């Protein structure tokens, strides 16, 4: 079927061996006028090198301040079917375990009341339903909540939909029950998730082990990353089997033919703290110096496993570049047991939010506030004692300040007198 708009530039994006979003939209455009006009407006944007979406529409459903992102086209005269093209975010189940039945029903709702176009999933983790009109928002919300037991996710200055890795459901390395943690946080913080009250967005992400499959350390204001505080479990026999070529390194993730593992070059020399040793028969690990990078475990999964005294490290402050550049999270709580009902963690979150809501400027992420006021101020507000594990290279970069009140005897410092003695 011929489409309404000519799209020579978009057609270029269908060439080559890669999957193409243009082909996907065209498939839907054959039956949905909304998708047809979407192609038209995109082609026009490419031609004029200017976007034609107005930013910052404000639409939603009653009772919630988030979950719907308003979008209007600024050329409704040319593209009447995308005059409204609002996005809805739907809270995905923990670790994205669905039944096919639920997925079918979501698609049915969207086919009838939206553009039919979906994005599985957005970078926050939600199901993104692309393009509907204002009058359809409440009916869609009703069906999602009453018939599917699903809910809208977060948008705007609120808690964004928490996200976790696959966790103990399918991964033997998971040190914490990421699915339970994500579900619990989602249910506990419903108010924060649906009714924006923060200075800006706030994200929780939870990975079961330091391999960090959801990139919590790079993408969340509060990263919960599984770890262990005892020793790596070693099966010496299996180590020897890797070296003898009986097992595939990386569990066959990078190659399919068996080969002998060069343990010195591929494991020992790559350990960031050089805490491993191979004496020809046995592998020794100086666990005190292990930084839980997971490299050795990932290469020899049948020989090495995380310890059994497991919990999580809590890190804060990651974000993409907005006001300041991109930042990774910093260690705030080196080890926490992270067992239900997670009261210790929630107490920390309360203090953290109070501090951020009190001191954060409008649209200032937690990481930027910590950078502005210093880690010391943040730790004090959260009643956490500074610890060398919060610092990358504590012996070279000891940036912890001591408060005279915390040191027996204390001291007095007179900046004026100091300058007198140090004039230059």
């Amino acid at each position, binding site marked *: 079927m011929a489409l309404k708009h000519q799209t020579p530039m978009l057609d270029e994006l269908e060439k080559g061996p890669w999957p193409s979003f243009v082909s996907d939209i065209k498939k839907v455009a054959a039956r949905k006028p909304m998708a047809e006009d979407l192609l038209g407006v995109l082609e026009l944007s490419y031609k004029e090198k200017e976007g034609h979406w107005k*930013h*910052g*529409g*404000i*639409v*939603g*459903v*009653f*009772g*919630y*301040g988030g979950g719907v*992102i*308003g979008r*209007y086209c600024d050329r409704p005269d040319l593209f009447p079917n995308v005059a409204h093209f609002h*996005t809805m975010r739907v809270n995905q189940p923990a670790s994205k375990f669905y039944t096919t039945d639920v997925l079918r029903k979501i698609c049915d709702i969207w086919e009838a009341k939206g553009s039919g176009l979906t994005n599985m999933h957005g970078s926050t983790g939600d199901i993104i339903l692309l393009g509907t009109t204002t009058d359809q928002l409440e009916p869609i919300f009703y069906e999602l909540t009453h018939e599917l037991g699903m809910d809208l996710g977060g*948008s*705007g*200055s609120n808690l964004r939909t928490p996200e976790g890795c696959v966790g103990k459901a399918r991964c033997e390395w998971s040190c914490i029950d990421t699915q339970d943690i994500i579900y619990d946080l989602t249910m506990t913080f419903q*108010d924060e998730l649906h*009714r*924006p*009250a923060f*200075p*800006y*967005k706030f994200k929780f992400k939870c990975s079961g082990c330091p391999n960090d499959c959801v990139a919590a350390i790079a993408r969340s204001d509060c990263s919960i990353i599984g770890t262990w505080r005892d020793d790596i479990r070693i099966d010496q026999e299996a180590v020897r089997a890797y070296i003898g070529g009986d097992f595939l390194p990386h569990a066959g993730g990078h190659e399919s033919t068996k080969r002998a593992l060069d343990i010195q070059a591929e494991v020992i020399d790559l350990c960031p703290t050089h805490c491993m040793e191979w004496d020809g028969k046995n592998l020794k690990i100086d666990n005190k110096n292990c930084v839980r990078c997971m490299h050795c475990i990932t290469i020899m999964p049948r020989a090495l496993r995380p310890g059994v005294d497991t919990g999580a490290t809590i890190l804060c402050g990651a974000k993409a570049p907005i006001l300041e550049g991109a930042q990774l999270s910093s260690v705030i709580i080196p080890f926490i047991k992270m067992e239900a009902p997670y009261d210790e963690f929630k107490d920390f979150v309360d203090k953290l939010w109070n501090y951020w*809501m009190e001191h954060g400027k*409008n*649209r200032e992420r937690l990481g930027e506030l910590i950078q502005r006021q210093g880690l010391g101020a943040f730790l004090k507000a959260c009643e956490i004692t500074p610890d060398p594990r919060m610092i990358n290279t504590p012996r070279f970069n000891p940036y912890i300040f001591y408060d005279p009140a915390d040191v027996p005897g204390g001291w007095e410092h007179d900046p004026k007198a100091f300058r007198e003695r140090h004039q230059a």
Partner: protein
Amino acid sequence: MAAVEFKGKTFEVDEDGFIASFDTWCPEWVDYVKASEGIAELTDEHWKVINVLQDYYKKHGIAPMVRILTKVTGYKLKYIYELFPSGPGKGACKMAGLPKPTGCV
């Protein structure tokens, strides 16, 4: 911009139903918007929120942050959503005649 007429007054509104200029705000506007905002009858509590928003806007030229609104009115955020079902930004600001809140999604 579309124009709506109500009780002899004319209002310019944008696609989200926000009034074009704060200067054209009058109590009739509140009367006009309340039905679409899911409010049957306005109480003193509704008016308290509207007045706080307008006072702050006149003084600072912007809408207050949610935290300031809850502090000054003494209402919890959840209660403000009970008063104004579509929330402080979309519902209460619209009724108070403030410009549409901008924000990142």
